[in-house]
């Protein structure tokens, strides 16, 4: 497959029956009268990493809310299409039920429980699993992020941004997910910390957890993922193997604005980017 845009509806759910994983097909989400997602097809086969790229407001977070069952907190709803994980439907399920099926999200902005200690935050992540599994998960998390062991008794609100992100990912891992959803894990982090988080994601995947990664940092996301999807104004406008997307210039043109004659602003040809306020923060990282 080249880096050309696929016809949105024509994207077959890949993955095959032997690695079913997460399957999203024909998904439409509305917040009241506002349509946030339209006809989204996406697959995360078991054991893989998939990335969703897109500017602010493209619908990335909405996509994760639809999977996690938290649209209702924002007066949103799935109006058509399906979300299923390993054959069982997630659309319509409550957030807690989605967690029990093995799909756990580390939300955008980290959202650690600031008034609770680091140890209590991790415990909160393991409330849905039996004690013994929680103990095993804690070992895995502290092995992955040793700093969380050092800070165990501190209030989570007093951690640095990077540490909070580690805590948010660690907390999500406490439930022992089969699929981890990450919403902008490197947002607002220094490059070194972002690289650390990327390393952790790679390690988590190597341990057998599949990952759906939502990112603005396209370079990092494409390096981690096997397959990537570009969301623009609620639609998947581009998808394919990450290597191909990274090699082609379609992502750069559409998403990063590289190669546009006037590099001070995003590509003017795409109305989806007009007035989005999406700066080319990814540029430096793209070449880094």
């Amino acid at each position, binding site marked *: 497959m080249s880096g050309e845009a696929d016809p949105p509806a024509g994207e077959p759910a890949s993955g095959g029956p032997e690695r079913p994983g997460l399957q999203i097909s024909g998904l439409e989400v509305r917040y009241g009268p506002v349509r946030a997602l339209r006809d989204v097809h996406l697959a995360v086969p078991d054991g893989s990493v998939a990335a969703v790229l897109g500017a602010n407001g493209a619908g990335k977070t909405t996509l994760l809310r639809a999977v996690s069952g938290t649209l209702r907190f924002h007066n949103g709803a799935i109006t058509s299409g399906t979300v299923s994980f390993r054959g069982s439907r997630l659309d319509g399920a409550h*957030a*807690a039920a989605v967690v*029990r099926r093995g799909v*756990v999200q580390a939300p955008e902005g980290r*959202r650690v429980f600031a*008034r609770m200690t680091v140890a209590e935050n991790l415990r909160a992540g393991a409330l849905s*699993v039996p004690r013994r599994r929680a103990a095993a998960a804690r070992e895995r998390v502290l092995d992955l992020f040793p700093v969380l062991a050092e800070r165990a008794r501190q209030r989570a609100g007093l951690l640095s941004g990077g540490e909070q992100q580690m805590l948010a990912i660690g907390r*999500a891992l*406490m439930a022992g997910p089969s699929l981890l959803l990450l919403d902008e894990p490197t947002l607002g982090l220094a490059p070194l910390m972002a690289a650390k988080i990327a390393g952790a994601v790679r390690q988590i995947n190597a341990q057998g957890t599949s990952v759906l990664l939502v990112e603005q940092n396209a370079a990092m996301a494409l390096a981690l993922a096997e397959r990537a999807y570009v969301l623009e104004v609620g639609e998947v406008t581009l998808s394919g193997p990450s290597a191909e997307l990274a090699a082609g210039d379609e992502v750069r043109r559409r998403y990063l604005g590289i190669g546009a004659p006037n590099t001070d602003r995003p590509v003017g040809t795409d109305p989806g980017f007009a007035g989005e306020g999406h700066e080319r923060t990814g540029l430096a990282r793209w070449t880094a």
Partner: protein
Amino acid sequence: MAVFLELLVNGVSVGAVYALIALGFVVIFKATEVVNFTHASLLLAGGYVIARMHPLIGFWAALAAGIVAAALVGALVEFLILRRAHVGSRGVLAIVTIGVDILLTTELTRRIGTEVLALGDPWGDRVLRLGPITVAETRVVALAVAGALIAAFLLAFTFTGWGVAMRATAEDAETAALMGVRLGRVSLSAWAVAGALAAVAALFLCVFPTPGLDRGTAAVAMKAFPAAILGGLDSTSGALAGGLIVGVTETLMNGYQSELVFLGRGIGDAAPFLVMIVILLLRPSGLFGTKEQARV
């Protein structure tokens, strides 16, 4: 001096009972962000069941029945009404709880009528003499029981999975749900716990030296409301402090009423609210209310 000590012990004891009620307010507020005005009628329901059951099954069984009944009424109010009231604003939900409170209180006062119901407690009007001061046994028991319950509650809140789920929900319900916390259960358990605590409080509000449970008991329970507010509506330790402040203030004001006639009669009843207003003017989020602590 002896008078002051007596009043102080009584005040602390009454305050501990108010703290039990205030704790119920706080638990529900933390779990659901709803200010629960149904609390007084939960208390009345618990007391009513104890009063009606004790001649039939004995005091201790009646107490257990009252606690279970109040917990059940609380859980039912949550499950049948609040969970189904899909209104956007917490303020509207608070008004819904006022409506429910009026319904429940009307029915219970209709059943109680003009009677004053005894609760059949084993302490009666016995008093303890400790040197120069004399205290009703019921006051000592109230203090011990309320203290033990509050301690048990705070320990559970800090160390059990239920407590962690409760605090996580209080801080960020959506993220708690993302961690697999079942919000419905958290909310249901909060209402049940609040009901159970209210029933125990009902017992101690109605025993000696109070003549018994009557239609005015619900109004007494409302004094715990300033206790919850002045402590900080989202703080369990605030409920404790608030309860004690209200209890001691009220008892001292009533005890020294003869010296305070220039303030008019019944100043003891108004005192909790005056204290609440003064404290809120100085500290708008209450004594222990949350101030955000965060680093970005």
